[in-house]
C-alpha cells in the first residue's frame, strides 16, 4: 500500500476507528501505557513502556477452589483484542525481544493471548529524549507495526505494515503522500537521529566478556542501590516471581509479579544465595542485556531506549558503561 497522509485533526478519527474494534492503550500521563477511551487522553509526545499490557506487573495464573476430593482450577486469562496507540520504534524492538522470551519454544499463554491479538500503531520520534540511544543499535526504525505515523508538520505520514493496518487506513479519510512529503519524512528522521547522543565506540559484545572481571564493575556496584527500578522500567525485563494467596474458605489464587535480578533474594534457595554479592547482581543485569541474550536468542536484549537511566536514582547510564567496556 502506498504511503498516505492525514491532517493532524484527523488523528482523532483514526483513534475512534481503532477504538471501535480494540481496547486501546496509550501514553497518557504515566511511565506505562494506560487504557484510554478518548483521543484527548493520549499524550503522543510522551514516551511510555508498553510491556505491562502483555505482561502486567501482577497477574493471576489461575484461581482454585476447594471441592469434594480436590480442587477446581480455573485459568484466568482471556484472549483480548488490544491496540497500542503511540508506541515508539524502540517499543517494537523491545516487543520483538519479549516475543522471544515469552513465545519461543515454550509459549507463555497469558502473554500470547494478548500479544497475538494486538495491533501496534506507532509514531516516529521527531525529538529524541536525552536518555535515548536507540540509533546506536540501529533501532530508530520500527521492526514491525500495523500503522506507523510520522509528524511532518501540517500532516502525518501514515503507513501500513500489515493487512489489519491497511484495512483501518482504507476506512478513514486520507490522501496519497507526495514525493515531497516522503522527503520531508526522511528529513525528520535524519534530524532526530543526529540529535541523539550515543557512545563513541562501536559496540563489541566480546569486549564485555573480556572485561567481566574489570574493576569498573566495583565502581558501578558502589553506586547501584539495587532498587530494581531499571528492571521495572525496562521494556525487555521479563523476570517474575510466583506466589499463592489463600482466602478463609480455602479458595485462592496463584499469581505472578514482576521481579528484579537486583533484589537480594532473587537467586536465593534453601541451599545458598547464588548472587549474594551486590556486584554479581549489578553485572548480571548488564551482561544479560548485552551478552547472554545474544548467545541465547541471537539478539541484544537492550534496545537503547534509555528508560533505565531515566528512573535510576544513581544515574547509572548504560552509555557510560558501554563507553568504558566496548
Amino acid at each position, binding site marked *: 500500500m502506498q504511503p498516505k497522509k492525514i491532517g493532524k485533526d484527523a488523528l482523532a478519527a483514526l483513534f475512534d476507528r481503532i477504538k471501535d474494534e480494540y481496547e486501546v492503550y496509550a501514553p497518557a500521563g504515566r511511565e506505562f501505557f494506560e487504557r484510554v477511551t478518548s483521543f484527548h487522553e493520549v499524550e503522543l509526545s510522551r514516551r511510555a513502556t508498553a510491556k505491562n499490557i502483555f505482561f502486567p506487573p501482577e497477574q493471576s495464573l489461575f484461581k482454585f477452589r476447594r471441592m469434594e476430593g480436590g480442587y477446581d482450577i480455573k485459568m484466568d486469562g482471556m484472549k483480548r483484542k488490544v491496540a497500542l496507540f503511540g508506541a515508539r520504534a524502540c517499543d517494537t524492538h523491545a516487543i520483538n525481544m519479549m516475543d522471544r522470551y515469552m513465545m519461543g519454544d515454550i509459549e507463555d499463554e497469558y502473554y500470547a493471548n494478548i500479544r497475538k491479538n494486538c495491533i501496534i500503531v506507532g509514531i516516529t520520534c521527531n525529538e529524541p529524549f536525552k536518555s535515548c540511544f536507540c540509533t546506536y543499535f540501529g533501532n530508530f526504525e520500527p521492526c514491525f507495526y500495523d500503522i506507523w505515523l510520522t509528524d511532518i508538520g501540517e500532516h502525518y505520514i501514515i503507513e501500513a505494515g500489515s493487512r489489519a493496518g491497511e484495512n483501518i487506513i482504507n476506512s478513514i479519510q486520507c490522501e496519497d503522500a507526495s514525493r515531497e512529503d516522503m522527503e520531508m519524512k526522511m528529513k525528520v528522521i535524519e534530524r532526530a537521529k543526529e540529535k541523539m547522543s550515543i557512545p563513541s565506540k562501536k559496540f563489541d559484545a566480546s569486549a564485555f566478556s573480556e572485561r567481566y572481571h574489570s574493576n569498573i564493575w566495583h565502581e558501578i556496584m558502589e553506586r547501584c542501590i539495587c532498587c530494581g527500578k531499571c528492571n521495572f522500567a525496562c521494556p525487555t525485563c521479563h523476570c517474575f516471581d510466583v506466589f499463592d494467596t489463600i482466602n478463609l474458605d480455602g479458595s485462592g489464587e496463584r499469581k505472578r509479579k514482576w521481579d528484579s535480578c537486583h533484589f537480594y533474594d532473587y*537467586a536465593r*534457595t534453601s541451599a545458598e544465595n*547464588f548472587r549474594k554479592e551486590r556486584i554479581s547482581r549489578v553485572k548480571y543485569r548488564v551482561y544479560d542485556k548485552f551478552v547472554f541474550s545474544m548467545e541465547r536468542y541471537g539478539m541484544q536484549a537492550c534496545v537503547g531506549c534509555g528508560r533505565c537511566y531515566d528512573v535510576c536514582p544513581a544515574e547509572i547510564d548504560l552509555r557510560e558503561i558501554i563507553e568504558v567496556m566496548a
Partner: protein
Amino acid sequence: MSFIPYLTKIEKIVQECNDTKTFWVEYSNSFNPGQFVEISVLGYGEAPISIAGGYENGIMLSIRAAGNVTKKLHNMKEGDVVGIRGPFGKPWPVNDVMGENLLMIAGGIGLAPLRPCIMHAIENRNDYGEVLLLYGARSPVQMLYRREYEEWRKSIDMDIIVDRGDESWKGKIGLVTELMDEVDFKGYAFVCGPPVMMKFVSMKLLEMGFDKSKIFLSLERNMKCGMGICGHCAIAGKYVCLDGPVFSLEDAMTMLEKPVELEGVL
C-alpha cells in the same frame, strides 16, 4: 507446557530421616533419571523436586522440609491432593556412559536425583563397567533409602561416610572426598550435593584425572517456572531448568558467570 498443575494424590509417605520424607505420587508422565517436577500445594506455592524414582502408578519424591511448601508437604497425609507439573530439565547422560565405568557421588539430599540413575544402572547392569556410589551424609540418622542399600550392593559398589557418627555407627567418619582418596577410578562421574561439597568433589575428581567432559553436576537454583520464562534459575544466560539441572563440568566451567559451586575450581 503450562502453569496449571495436574492434580493428583499422595499414595504413600515414608519418613526417610529426621527432616526428609519420601512421597509416592500418582503421575503418568514418563521421565528420565535426573529430571525434576514442580510440586504444588495450592495456597502455599510450588517447589522444584527431583524425581527420585518411578513406580507403577507414578513417581517418588524425597523432600526435605526447608520452607513454606516443603514444610506443608511434611504435614500432609496419604490421600491428600497435590499438584504436579513436569518433568523438566536435562537428565543424566546415562546412555553416553554405556560400556564405561560410572562413579556416583552424593551428598545429603543429593542422593535423591541420583537414585533413578542407580536404579537404571542396576536394571541395565551389563551395559556398564564398574559402578560405584559414594555417599556422604551429615549423620547416620540422616541417610536416605537405608532400607535399599542391601539390595543395591548386590549389583553395585557403595561406600558411605558421615560427618558425625553416633553410638551405633561403626562406619567411616569424615567428608565424602575422603572416600574418593581410597579409590582408583577412571570413567564418568555424576555428582549432586550441597554447593561446597560439589566444589571439593570437582577438585578431587580433576586431581584423580577425570576428564572435565566426563564429570556431570546437578545444580540447584531458585526456580519459579521450570520453563525458561521467569529468569530466576539463569546462570550466565543458561537456564538451569531447561539446559540443566545436569551440566558437564566442562560446560559449567566455561560459563562467564562462574557457578558458585565451582568457585576456586581451576
